[in-house]
């Protein structure tokens, strides 16, 4: 079974984001970039499927400028077999990404796509579901468990009230939540090996996909900051403040 794993280059999750002074965007100059944490989990799940003998090949695909090759190399070091970069310097939005992925799915014919449930930059949480619509594949979003058996995918999903289990026909799209697995670290030998793994470079034009943005960002502002309040010295003082000052209990 071929597994396709879309991965995204994002700001490292430890970095404190700052808004540019002209309010055009957040400042990403000289900021550490990394593989989106949910994409790491997706790669790990695919690699585990390969280790169990269920997956035969794991393909990591990313889209964006040339530097996204770094995140594909990271994915290869974590155990993916080969990479695909759809290279463009244009801004990509989820619908365009889903369309590019659909074109890659048409070429590669994977039986399973594992994608992170959201990226920690734009926080959209859309790409997997949109790819489901465009390919007609079934979808198991916010997955915390995945079992492949008898040509089906059984996905346990994290939903608001608890957990939900769905049984999906293959090919299927699974979007990874935090607790699907614990990603491994890439070992040095694997990082070296990853440099020799194949990576195809494609373009949106070659794939025949219109990536025109549908949404324009007019401005980006810092959120309203909360001021730190006071430190109280006892539980009694705290309860008194809550009752008589804030009047919330």
């Amino acid at each position, binding site marked *: 079974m071929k597994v396709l794993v879309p991965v995204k280059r994002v700001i490292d999750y430890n970095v404190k984001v700052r808004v540019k002074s002209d309010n055009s965007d*957040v400042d990403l100059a000289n900021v550490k970039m990394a593989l989106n944490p949910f994409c790491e989990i997706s790669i790990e799940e695919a690699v585990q499927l390969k280790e169990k003998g269920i997956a035969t090949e794991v393909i990591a695909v990313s889209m964006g400028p040339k530097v996204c090759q770094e995140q594909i190399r990271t994915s290869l070091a974590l155990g993916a077999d080969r990479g695909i970069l759809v290279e463009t310097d244009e801004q990509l939005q989820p619908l365009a990404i889903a369309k590019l992925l659909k074109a890659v799915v048409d070429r590669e014919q994977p039986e399973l796509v594992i994608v992170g449930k959201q990226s920690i930059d734009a926080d959209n949480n859309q790409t997997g579901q949109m790819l489901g619509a465009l390919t007609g594949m079934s979808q198991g979003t916010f997955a915390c468990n995945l079992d492949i058996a008898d040509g089906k995918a059984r996905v346990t999903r994290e939903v608001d009230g*608890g957990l939900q289990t769905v049984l999906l026909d293959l090919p299927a799209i699974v979007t990874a939540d935090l607790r699907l697995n614990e990603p491994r670290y890439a070992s040095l030998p694997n990082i070296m090996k990853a440099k020799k793994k194949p990576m195809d470079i494609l373009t949106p034009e070659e794939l025949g996909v219109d990536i025109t943005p549908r949404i324009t960002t007019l401005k980006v502002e810092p959120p309203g900051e909360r001021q730190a309040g006071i430190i109280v010295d006892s539980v009694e003082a705290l*309860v008194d403040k809550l009752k008589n000052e804030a009047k919330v209990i």
Partner: protein
Amino acid sequence: MSILVLAEHNNSELNQATLNTVAAAAAIGGDIAVLVAGHNCASVAEGAAKIAGVSKVLVADNAAYENMLAENVAALISEVGKDYGHILASATTSGKNILPRAAALLDVAQISEIIEVVSSDTFKRPVYAGNAVATVQSSDPIKVITVRGTAYDAVAAEGGSAVIEAVDVVTDAGISVFEKEELVKSDRPELTAAKIVISGGRGMQNGDNFEHLYKVADILGAAVGASRAAVDAGFVPNDMQVGQTGKIVAPELYIAVGISGAIQHLAGMKDSKVIVAINKDEEAPIFQVADYGLVADLFKVLPEFEELIQK
């Protein structure tokens, strides 16, 4: 142009989140229709018809929609929603599951988790875990939007008298099956709707110690939440997680106990009206957003707190 709002429900009752989403629809302005997709869901449709400001309720009652499977419901929305200017759903796990699929079927973008309507095509939404707020404008003919419930006060559940119309479109993709749901039963209020939330973090040390929080919660009528660290450590189930990738809450009072205050957690609670932090580490970032901080051992604080609030 009219606005279509996807109702969130369990086939017998309407979920409160729908009322917040209708409030966002009212802020956009226009006729509001509510789509109830489900099975044997007549009582939900009747409830939706009473929501203040709703003029029409569309009911798609079919076994294919019973469990709100995205494959089936998104196809329904893309059929029913074609003639609307806006399609809205709550940014709950259900809305997030279904709506992007519907948007792509309509070949339009989705705007996720809006917190403000600037105009009928321009909206504000948090990005980077709430560390920035983007104002975005859509050029699509249909604006597909999920709404962050905490950003809007619920409209009145009573007072409206919308007409109810049956929709006979059946879109059963037949590629997915609902097997089971393990929902956590609790007498406490729902996290996202509670007026008071008390959350525990890694400092709680284990799941049994959450009992202290449950006791306080029951006295205050509060919901109990947790940080990602507490959930990852297995203290409590995932549905209690408050944060960027868990639930977003904005209660009157948020009490953070043994929570350090990682950016990802703050993203889920910093819009609370009053924040209390109880932590023995005075350097913990949670104190920077707290109105009242208490630097102390939570195991000493909680029993005393419990006693004093009962007085």
